């Protein structure tokens, strides 16, 4: 009964979506306030209906209702409660339902908090959002209905893929989707603005917080996924340039570009049509990502069994939404008049350079990801584009990007002074060159080592650069401390947000560089009592024993980790055999010093000789990747709390009263 209720709610939601995607549009065209205002109750109704469906599916999982096919195939009574709930989105149908739930939640947020939006823009934005929702609801109802019944119901379910029974992956899809789907807001605002034929500073101010929010969630989502792959797959790596990883990375790159170009629209009324295009492409890449993951068209190390007809449907959705909006763009964009002029060397110029590099990087990642599909279609043979390609293409594009990241914020709007900015960055330059030289010499001074030195030098350049920029703004050491603090207090929060996010990038660059160049891996057969030394850390194998978990049996290896004879930790990696579904997994054991990870994996008992196959890693600066991602997200949060962003952002009524009264373009 509950499942049928959920199914029925989805059908009703589709009807509401049809109304919401047409009536407010007509209303906005005719200037009919009643028709435009229909969008708001409709958004609320859709949220309640889709929410009901989501709750119904969650309920079926929580009570283990195996008469629902989806539950029977993906859940099991023995599973811990956390994974029963996360099992809701640990499969294709449920993850799509989560996608739509987030989509309508964003729409509801616009309906509730967008009171200060012009009524026509709000009506059109909500209508476009409803069109996307309608498309996805059709997708669910026709190809991926999670509420189908199974008769007779089995005694127990097949269980969730054990690799997904992990806290990191329980929250990875919701975060990722909050990001992917969040870019639908930028898309809807962009299409609505194209219909209106008007893009101004106020428009950018409404779009920025939504983009920032989506970007922040996507950053966290990607980091969570990477962290999961790092500790759960037992391979000691955190990024493989795999199609599924690229699928989430491309919207992130485009979204980052969008975040920066929207600033130029808001402050200088320039780059308008480029920003609109970016908003369309960013969401298009989110849809493409969904397509790549759901269609199984490309071999991926992270791929799950998939169904080609579903892929076709997503491709159709992608074609209609991106094709349609690009057509609209082609018709309307020429009428968007460019505003403020600026010299190539200026804050706008540096943001534009950021956009060019980001867009080029996105395009190269896209090309590398899709090339195997093209090559196959054109009968050029079956090929794979792996990490060496992406590293060779991506890294050279990031070098100029990071070089300008430290300079850009120091340039003034309209016309900047590069010499002045560089003069203020002398400390960053000196330290960066110092680190470059020392690293290069330490690494051996060979031609192969130069990239490691460049990477660390860039990280230092950026980190010191953003610190100097902030210190300059508060006149640190040049004014009395009290004066500096007073200045810091009056700085807009967005300034701190930028500093934090850029510092996060510096940490990630350092982490990527060091963990790629100084990682140590040892694979061997070890017998109890044997010690293997990896980069100065001694791993002493103490043997393995059998242990039992709630829904698995495991072999648990035990290693004493010590340095200079002093015991630091005991690592207990496991090799688990789950019972439902019957599937083995590897649980790595990781000890982190905060600077580096010591990582141990135990494999099968060796054949033909005593002992176990073990794999030991020294992973320097990998924790910096996570710190960096957290700092970036924190920067996003701090920026979101900026008073200036509250116009049109989720805001309470009394807070909205003040800033909303401010004239646009303030």
């Amino acid at each position: 009964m509950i499942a049928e209720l959920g199914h029925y709610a989805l059908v009703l939601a589709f009807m509401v979506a049809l109304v919401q995607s047409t009536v407010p549009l007509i209303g906005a065209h005719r200037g009919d306030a009643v028709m435009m205002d229909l969008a708001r109750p409709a958004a609320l109704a859709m949220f309640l209906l889709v929410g009901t469906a989501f709750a119904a599916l969650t309920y079926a999982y929580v009570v283990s209702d195996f008469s629902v096919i989806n539950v029977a195939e993906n859940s099991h009574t023995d599973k811990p409660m956390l994974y029963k709930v996360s099992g809701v989105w640990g499969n294709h149908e449920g993850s799509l339902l989560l996608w739509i739930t987030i989509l309508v939640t964003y729409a509801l947020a616009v309906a509730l908090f967008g009171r200060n939006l012009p009524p026509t823009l709000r009506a059109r934005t909500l209508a476009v959002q409803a069109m996307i929702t309608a498309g996805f609801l059709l997708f669910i109802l026709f190809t991926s209905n999670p509420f189908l019944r199974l008769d007779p119901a089995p005694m127990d379910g097949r269980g969730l893929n054990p690799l997904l029974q992990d806290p990191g992956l329980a929250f990875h899809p919701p975060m990722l989707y909050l990001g992917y789907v969040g870019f639908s807001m930028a898309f809807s605002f962009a299409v609505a603005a194209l219909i209106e034929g008007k893009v101004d500073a106020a428009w950018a101010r409404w779009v920025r917080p939504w983009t920032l929010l989506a970007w922040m969630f996507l950053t966290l989502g990607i980091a969570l996924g990477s962290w999961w792959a790092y500790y759960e797959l037992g391979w000691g790596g955190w990024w493989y340039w795999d199609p599924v990883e690229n699928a989430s990375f491309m919207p992130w790159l485009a979204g980052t570009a969008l975040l920066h170009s929207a600033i130029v629209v808001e402050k200088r009324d320039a780059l308008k049509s480029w920003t609109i295009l970016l908003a369309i492409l960013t969401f298009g890449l989110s849809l493409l990502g969904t397509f790549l993951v759901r269609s199984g068209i490309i071999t991926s190390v992270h791929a799950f069994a998939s169904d080609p007809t579903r892929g076709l449907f997503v491709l159709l959705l992608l074609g209609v939404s991106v094709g349609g909006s690009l057509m609209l763009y082609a018709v309307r964009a020429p009428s968007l008049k460019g505003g403020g002029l600026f010299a190539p060397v200026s804050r706008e110029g540096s943001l534009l350079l950021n956009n060019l590099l980001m867009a080029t990087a996105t395009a190269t990642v896209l090309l590398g990801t899709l090339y195997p599909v093209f090559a196959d279609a054109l009968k050029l043979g079956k090929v794979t584009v792996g990490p060496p390609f992406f590293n060779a293409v991506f890294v050279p594009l990031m070098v100029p990007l990071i070089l300008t990241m430290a300079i850009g914020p120091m340039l003034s709007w309209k016309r900047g002074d590069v010499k002045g900015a560089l003069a203020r960055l002398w400390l960053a330059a000196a330290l960066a060159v110092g680190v470059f030289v020392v690293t290069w010499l330490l690494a051996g001074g060979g031609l192969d080592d130069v990239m490691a030195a460049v990477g660390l030098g860039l990280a230092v350049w950026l980190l010191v650069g953003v610190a100097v920029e902030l210190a300059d703004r508060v006149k640190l050491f040049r004014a009395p401390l009290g004066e500096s603090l007073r200045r810091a207090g009056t700085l807009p929060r967005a300034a701190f947000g930028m500093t934090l996010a850029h510092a996060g990038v510096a940490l990630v660059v350092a982490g990527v560089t060091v963990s790629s160049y100084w990682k140590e891996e040892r694979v061997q057969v070890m017998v109890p009592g044997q010690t293997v030394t990896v980069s100065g850390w001694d791993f002493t194998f103490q043997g393995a024993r059998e242990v039992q978990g709630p829904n698995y049996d495991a072999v648990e290896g035990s290693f004493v980790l010590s340095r200079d004879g002093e015991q630091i930790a005991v690592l207990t990696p496991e090799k688990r055999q789950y019972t439902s579904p019957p599937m083995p997994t590897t649980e790595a054991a990781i000890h982190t010093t905060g600077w580096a990870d010591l990582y141990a994996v135990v494999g099968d008992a060796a054949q033909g000789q005593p002992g176990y196959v073990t794999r030991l890693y020294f992973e320097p600066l990998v924790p910096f990747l996570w710190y960096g991602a957290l700092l970036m997200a924190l920067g996003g949060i701090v920026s979101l709390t900026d008073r200036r962003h509250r116009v049109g952002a989720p805001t309470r009524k009394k807070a909205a009263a003040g800033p909303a009264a401010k004239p646009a373009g303030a």
Partner: protein
Amino acid sequence: MTRKKRRLYFVGAGMLALFAGAALVLTAFQDNLVFFYSPSDLQAKQVSADQRFRLGGMVEEGTVEKQGDTVRFKVTDYAASTPVTFTGILPDLFREGQGVVAEGKIGSDGVFVASEVLAKHDENYMPPEVADALARQDPAWKEKLGRSVEGVEPAKATN
């Protein structure tokens, strides 16, 4: 600065970025494309010993031998098979009678030395290249797969 001049700058910068991107992609493609071959492909053509490629097919039943941390097995597409050797820990879902993709180089003795055996997250997942290669050799591969998977099940249940 006039509007026209500014536009010229932007178009120039855009072109520059585009050219740089294209140049990077083309040079990287030259060195870094990894081709996919099935055992039948290897029989039909000579692959040089220094070319890195991916070999895919099914792990042939009864061919997996472990010696210390080294594993030897054969990859088959039911028409030809290629011996493979790999040192290290195999992915969790590596099993006889299941699809596999390995990356590495082939030696002059015809043995494929894998530096990487790709992991899968899901037992039912079949890499599309493997499915295609099998279908090329034998359109009825799915039935064979069905039998061999069933053959594996009882052995697993007794563990």
